[in-house]
């Protein structure tokens, strides 16, 4: 056990050494962590309840008040504090994004491992399924799914419906990635040895395959979360969010449909959009860097540097031999 811990500590240390020198990765982590902090400390940071109406002495609400006038980021059409909505919206957007991301990560990893490990008809079936899902236009499909589930009046919260629909549709890229990793892993010697001493499929998958693909799954999940946050904002913009628990996308929907544009109330639609860019950019940067560190690809190509082949520096052919696989 202690030997394992040491091994883990060493590889984690190596990872951190690579990661901390990677500026895009650090920027991504910073963007994501600040957004998470915003969501966690929402009650402290908001300063006011987002549903509270700010009124003047006569009790009339301040509608479309510009920033810093009566509220840090101004007010909306009903005199609600935009900053408070933004801070509480972080909770909704991030919760939906992360939960949907986890759901599709779970489905994608499970199917990817099964397809890659067992091969044969399991593999064919699952891969054909991903082929089909890739071609069907995703957003229209999600729109009709969400709309029909809501029409059924099952009493499920709109946010839960959204998490389910997004999670059920975005697992294909994870499944493909994990499958290709498992395909190479299962040919490795430690798997063959485990099988030789009589280990069952369950044991091999749990003890040998999953620990090996787990880092890649984590990296991929960060990327899927950014997709999920963007998709959530889109569905919410089209009016499928929960109006009683507005996410950032719902806020932009409110701004758009309640004439914030014609009133010049940029503080109503700019901040939530910037927040979405902030988080999803953070996830993309972080996810890409994690994937790059865990699954390194090519480091140089033949046309880098001088046009003359006999250059001052050494020829790039040695580095170039690490080129990635063909498509």
């Amino acid at each position, binding site marked *: 056990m202690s030997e394992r811990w040491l091994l883990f500590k060493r590889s984690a240390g190596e990872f951190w050494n690579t990661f901390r020198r990677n500026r895009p990765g650090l920027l991504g982590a910073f963007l994501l962590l600040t957004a998470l902090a915003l969501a966690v400390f929402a009650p402290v940071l908001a300063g006011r309840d987002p549903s509270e109406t700010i009124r003047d002495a006569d009790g009339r609400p301040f509608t479309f008040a510009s920033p810093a006038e009566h509220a840090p980021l101004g007010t909306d059409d009903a005199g609600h504090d935009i900053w408070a909505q933004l801070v509480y919206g972080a909770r909704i957007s991030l919760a939906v994004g992360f939960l949907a991301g986890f759901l599709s990560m779970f489905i994608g990893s499970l199917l990817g491992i099964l397809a890659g490990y067992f091969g044969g008809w399991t593999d064919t079936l699952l891969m*054909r399924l991903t*082929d*089909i899902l*890739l*071609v*069907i*236009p*995703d*957003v*229209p*499909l999600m*729109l*009709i*799914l969400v*709309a*029909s589930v809501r*029409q*059924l*009046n099952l009493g499920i919260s709109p946010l839960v419906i959204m998490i389910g629909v997004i999670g059920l549709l975005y697992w294909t890229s994870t499944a493909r990635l994990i499958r290709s990793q498992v395909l190479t892993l299962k040919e490795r010697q430690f798997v063959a040895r485990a099988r030789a001493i009589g280990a069952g499929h369950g044991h091999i998958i749990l003890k040998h395959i999953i620990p090996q693909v787990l880092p890649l799954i984590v990296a991929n999940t960060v990327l899927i979360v*950014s997709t999920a946050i*963007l998709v959530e*904002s*889109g569905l919410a*913009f*089209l*009016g*499928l969010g929960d109006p009683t628990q507005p996410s950032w*996308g719902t806020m*932009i929907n409110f701004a*758009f449909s309640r004439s914030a*544009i014609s009133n010049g109330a*940029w503080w109503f*639609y*700019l901040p939530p*959009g910037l927040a*979405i*860019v902030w988080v*999803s*950019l953070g996830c*993309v*940067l972080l996810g*890409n860097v994690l994937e790059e560190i865990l699954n390194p690809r*090519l480091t*140089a*190509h*033949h*046309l*880098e540097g001088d*046009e003359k*082949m006999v250059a001052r520096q050494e020829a790039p*052919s040695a580095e*170039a031999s690490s*080129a*990635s696989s*063909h*498509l």
Partner: protein
Amino acid sequence: MERRDYIIRKLFMAVLTLAVVVVVDFYLFRVLPGDPVRAVIGRNVRISREAQENLRVQFGLDKPLHEQFFATLGQWAQGNLGISWSLRQPVSEVLLAKLLNSLLLVILGQTFSIVLGIALGLFAGWKRKTAVDVGALAFSLTMWATPTFWLGIILLVAGSSWLGLPTGGTLSPQNINKPLWEVWPDLALHLILPTLTFTIVYLGEYMLIMRSSVLEVLSEDYILTAKAKGMTHWQVLRRHALKNAMLPIVTLVALNLGFTVAGAIYIETVFSYDGLGKLFQTALEKQDFPLLQGAFLLLAVSVITANFIADVVYSYLDPRVKAT
């Protein structure tokens, strides 16, 4: 692999996907409360029970579900997609009226983003790790992280207040119902902002794919050989790298068509552009299920068909798929 086998396999997948779409589209809307009878009676509750029952028989709703499925399938095959609840018009007519506007926007946006994306991606991959590359990469990632509809709103506000461009629609009110050759400058003016949004949104993705494809091709041995023969960088890129690096773009264009539809829905909604995307959003808002069902069918069929065409084109472009 022989081309004929390849095409047959792709055709099989296309038909299979189509079958899945049709089944989902039919059964999804059948589990919903309310049925085609509601389309005829609307909210008119005074229609007697017997009359409703008669209508039910007329629509074939008394038959088992799988019989209804094949009946509906036959109707769809003949272009009969039912009646829109909100517009009280045949769905197919409504859809056809909007199709052209959407195609115009999508084709313009895709053309610009593909051409610019390929050029930028080639340059960024070639000048890897220089300021150009880092800048292009940062731009692409940021645009990837930007919600399409939000970018549309920003461009709408900026374009209309600073450049005086129209804020929405396809034509100015006085130009509606006039022949196209008289009003095309007005149409073009209305197309600028939606097309710009489209181009920016998809440009980044094409650039990223082209860049990584260029990086991969430039690491091949034949590039080193070409360079060793004394060709300049530009010659190597034009004669050896460009064609090979562009292959993944063909696949990406096909796969992207599904996302293009999403883009069209967001952009047309923001700019109240009179196309299929806007229609889809309106149908959603009004819970017009026959219209949603028909629109989804049309969108899915278009994407599947276009995808198949791209696969066939690919088989002619990629020498690894051999002719018989």
